[in-house]
């Protein structure tokens, strides 16, 4: 398994078109998500342009490499690009050295996917999505004529950074290989998660007041709405201990309660 003879061995960085193909395919990594091997097919789909560039018409080599990657793989979809870059780097190195064993490569892939899965879930799903949504919603409610800008702020605040993170991580992984871990250690992602979740909680506090003041119109009815809303939020907090009380159950109880109350009185 060696690199095509006509390829310049010093040019070990994939061509721009190969990187673009890998990145654009990475946006589809979840399309074939399944319970058996999770994102394995999506990951292999992303890696294919690189393997094709490395091995050109050597179908046997490409087939062997693809088969190696069609095993269980699961991580956060954004951080998958980082793993993609690191694995890509390893594939390039292997093709240069003629290394046929994939043990190290697959071990790196496995260990990175587990660590990045937790990191990505905490950073993006649990922190950045609610944070940007709250930003947009507060803008929309406070300045009701700014609905479109509010939506745009939400979209831009989230989408551009996540696309940049995805493309930069892949680029850095392809360039530095496994040592990207040092870079991630340097920027200290867990500290950013703590800081951003503080900011998200701050925004949630702001949003709670914005919502409550929007439901209070100065009448007795408005005062009742305000009191009930505060009670519900407090009940939700008290029920933290009892995970068995989901929001939808409280919803049904509240809706049923309002119907019974208004029908009786």
């Amino acid at each position: 398994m060696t690199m095509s003879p006509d390829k310049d061995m010093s040019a070990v960085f994939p061509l721009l078109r190969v990187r673009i193909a890998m990145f654009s395919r990475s946006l589809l990594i979840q399309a074939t998500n399944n319970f058996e091997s999770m994102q394995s097919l999506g990951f292999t789909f992303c890696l294919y342009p690189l393997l094709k560039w490395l091995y050109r018409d050597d179908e046997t080599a490409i087939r062997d490499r693809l088969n190696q990657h069609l095993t269980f793989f699961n991580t956060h979809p954004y951080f998958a690009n980082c793993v993609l870059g690191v694995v890509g780097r390893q594939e390039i190195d292997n093709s240069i050295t003629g290394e046929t064993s994939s043990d190290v490569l697959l071990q790196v892939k496995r260990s990175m996917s587990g660590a990045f899965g937790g990191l990505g879930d905490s950073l993006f799903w649990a922190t950045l999505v609610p944070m940007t949504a709250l930003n947009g919603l507060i803008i929309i409610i406070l300045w009701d004529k700014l609905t479109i800008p509010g939506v745009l702020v939400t979209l831009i605040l989230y989408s551009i950074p996540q696309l940049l993170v995805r493309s930069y991580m892949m680029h850095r992984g392809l360039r530095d290989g496994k040592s990207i871990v040092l870079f991630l250690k340097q920027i200290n992602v867990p500290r950013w998660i703590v800081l951003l979740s503080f900011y998200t909680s701050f925004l949630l506090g702001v949003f709670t007041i914005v919502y409550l003041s929007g439901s209070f119109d100065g009448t007795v009815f408005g005062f009742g709405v305000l009191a009930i809303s505060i009670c519900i939020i407090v009940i939700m907090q008290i029920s933290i201990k009892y995970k068995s009380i989901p929001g939808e159950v409280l919803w049904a109880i509240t809706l049923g309660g309002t119907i019974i109350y208004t029908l009786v009185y």
Partner: protein
Amino acid sequence: MELFAQITDAAIVIALFGLISAFIGLDYIAIGQTMLAQPAVCGVLLGLVIGEPVAGLWSGIVFQFLWSGKLPIGKYVPPNAFNAAVFTVICVAAMPSSIPVAFRVVGSASLGILVGIIGGRLDVLVKRSNDVVVTDARAAVDSGDFSVLTKATLTGVFRFFAKDLLLMIPASTVGVAVVWGIYTLVGERLLDAMELAFRILPAIAIGAGIRGFFRGRNIIAFTVGIVVAIIALVLFNFDIIGGWLK
């Protein structure tokens, strides 16, 4: 005759927005995962398009936070907040405007919770059906057919698209019929209850959101946010008292 025209309008709205939502829904899992399919964006945008911005904003707030503590980690598939939010907005748009907005929104959102849970279960089914695609892809790669990777990915995209389309159109049809039917039968008696529920139900979603975020000392930041918001509202006199919910 008027009823026939209203039903025709509803059918057109459901078909049109069902199709649009199936395209937007691809962003939720299959393509990109930007914020486009998040309720806070798609709910508000669709609300604007249908001319019911309050309904869009309301459903955006509720479904952005109601399940925010349930994250798609590993093999766990949470309820589909996108399906729930878009279902609510489509139902609100499809019902005649003679039905008060509070009634349409609360009725639709209550059914929307069910649609969100069903949507999550259907996501599980799509992922299960993808198991077969992977098995087939392995066999094809073994036989030297590498184009199967692209075909399998496109098949996956189509499955998620079809799932949203096949869920949203029938669910919205049933949802509109149920809420409209309840309003026709006992609507007048439930109006006050729906008005009250319209104002207080988002508090459940906010409570769920707080519950989802709170870790360790975040409560300090939350309290600071409350204090800052109260001071800012008083100092800058934002005109939202009783505003956005009307």
